[in-house]
Structure formats: structure tokens, C-alpha cells
């Protein structure tokens, strides 16, 4: 939540921004890549939506994919249940992480001790 999606850009533009800026990837190639990754998460339909139009799960996935676009990405998720408050357990997040596990080097989730039961055996 501290690094929100850029609200005057579509979700796919938020995802492609890192590749276009740091790797000078052509717009068309970056666009196709973003759509492919969104499809992996079953969220191809949010590509042209903007941040305010997203539900918490969609927003989380958009932020996750944007973070994964960094070269040799090390993803740090700080209190995921603050981003998606109505989740009963961590399964949605671990499933999303598994679907894109080739895009990042490591992922760390930080949360308060009293949230431990929501994480189960993780």
C-alpha cells in the first residue's frame, strides 16, 4: 500500500513501466509480456483498468506483477492482509506467487506474530 499503482495509468502500463524504463524494452513487446503475465493469474480483463476500478485481489496482483518486473526481483510483501483484508488465509497469495515463480528470485512475507494462524503451515 505504501507503493501504490500509478492511478492515471492502466494496470498493464504499471507493469510494463519497469521494463520500458530500465531495459528500454519496446512498448509493443512490454505490452504483450504484461498481458501474458496477467493471463497467467487469470486477470487479463483488468489490463486496461485503472487502480481505483480494481478490487483488493486485483490490486494486489497488479502490484505483485509490477514488483516481479524488476530484474532479479526479490519481492517483499509487508502485511498482505492489510492489502486484502477480507482474506481468511494465505492461500490466494501463495497460489498467485506460484503462478509467477519464474519471474522472481525470492519472496519474503512479513507480518505480525498474532496473524500467524492465517498463514497455517507456511
Amino acid at each position: 500500500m505504501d507503493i501504490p499503482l500509478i492511478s492515471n495509468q492502466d494496470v498493464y502500463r504499471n507493469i510494463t513501466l519497469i521494463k520500458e524504463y530500465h531495459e528500454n524494452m519496446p512498448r509493443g513487446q512490454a505490452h504483450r509480456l504484461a498481458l501474458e503475465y496477467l493471463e497467467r493469474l487469470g486477470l487479463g480483463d483488468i489490463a486496461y483498468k485503472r487502480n481505483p476500478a480494481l478490487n483488493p485481489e486485483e490490486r494486489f496482483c497488479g502490484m505483485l506483477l509490477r514488483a516481479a518486473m524488476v530484474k532479479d526481483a526479490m519481492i517483499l510483501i509487508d502485511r498482505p492482509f492489510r492489502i486484502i483484508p477480507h482474506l481468511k488465509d494465505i492461500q490466494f497469495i501463495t497460489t498467485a506467487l506460484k503462478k509467477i515463480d519464474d519471474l522472481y528470485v525470492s519472496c519474503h512475507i512479513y507480518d505480525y506474530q498474532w496473524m500467524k494462524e492465517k498463514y497455517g503451515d507456511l
Partner: protein
Amino acid sequence: MAFWESLGHRVIRMLTALSGTIHFAGKVLLRIFQRKTYNSATREVLVNQIYFTSVEILPALILFAIVFGSLLIGIVFTLLKNFGLTGFVGHVLMGLIVTELSPLLTVLLITLRSGSAINTEMAVMKVSREINALETFRIDVIDYLVAPRIISGMISIVLLSSLFSIVLLVSGLLFSWLIFGISLDVYTIILLNSTNFSNIFITLVKCAVYGFFITLIPVRFGLRASHELTSVPIVVSQGMVNVFAAILIIEVLSLLTKLF
């Protein structure tokens, strides 16, 4: 004593703000000429900004130029005829309307539309921590947000001011035919004889300088917003007041340049 103290504080604040703006302008100008500023992302922002600033405003600008320009030219030509100054038609058209009024009216229109939008956009991005998000991903705010907007401002003012002048010259043709009975050939010769190319060059440079400052100042003030929503209207009003002051200063400086 209190009066002098408060006056001194105001002057110091004003000079500090001015030096800050000049420093920021220098930094941005340097980036504009650096090749590494331009990547796929910044090029896309530049194209979008040119579209927002130059293309979307076209219908309003052309309509404004036709209505206001025709009125103005009609009044000026009637006055010239009444005072027996028909021989000065060309000089009035080129020296006053094309090189002075067109850039000024264009820059006022763009400032009202795009300057205020840029100022608010930057302030809202700061408040909602989107600027922090860009910095977290090592995306330079000057490269990605500021430079494309400023280049687009410079290009837009030069092009739109030229278009404004063309519309006014066409109005001029119509009115010179109606009021003085001047034909197209004669009108063209009058215009060419009255054209001072150094003045046109100064006008184009002035347009580029206008474009630079009417985007730089809103960006600078927008980025000065705090993380409180209440800071948005404050920085927007400060930014717009400063933009209008800058327009006046540039106008006076350009007049001085033409005098000497």
C-alpha cells in the same frame, strides 16, 4: 521595525523561491539534453503529453482564434481606416497580432488548461505516494514525469501559437477585403513587406521559453505538496499565480529584447 523585518523576510523568501526555481530549471534543462533521459517509457509519456496538450485543445483553440481573432482584427482594421492609417495594416498584423498577441493568447489558453492540470496531477501523485512508488522502483521523477511534460509544453506552444497566427492571418485577409477591398495578392505583398524575420525568430524563442516555464512551475509547485490532501489547493493556487507572474516577466523581457 516590525514592518522592515517582515518585508525582509518576504524578500528573502521570494529570492529563495526564485533561486530554487532557477536551480530546478537548470537541472531539468540538463536532463533534457542528456541522451539517457530518453527510453521507451519517457518517449511514450512525451507522445501522450503532446497529444493531451496540443491535439485535444485544437477545436477550442481554433474556435477561440476565429471568434476572438476576427473580433480583434475587425476592430483594429476599422480603427486604422477611421484614422487614415491604412498603410500600417501589414505592420499591425505582423508586429502586433502575429508576434505579440498570438503567443500571449495561446500561452494563456494552454496555462489555463494544461498548466493547472499538470500542477494538480503532480500534487495528487505526491499526496497519494505515487511519487514514492516511482522512486522505490528507481524511476527518476525528472526523467519520467518532468522532462517529457516540459518538452511537450515547448513544442505545443510553438506549434499552437503558429496555428493561432495562421488563423488570425486568414481572418485578416477576410477583413482587409471587406474593409479596405484588398485582394489576396496585395494582402500577401503587404504581409511579406511587413515581415521582420528577426522578430519572428524572437517570437518562436519566446514561445519555447513560455512552454518551458508554464510546465516547469506547475510541476515544481505540485511536487511541493505534502502528504495531506489539504495541501493540493494551496500548491495549485501558488503554482498558477507564479505561472502568470512568469508569463508577465517573459513578455516584458521579450519586449526589451526587441527594443535593443
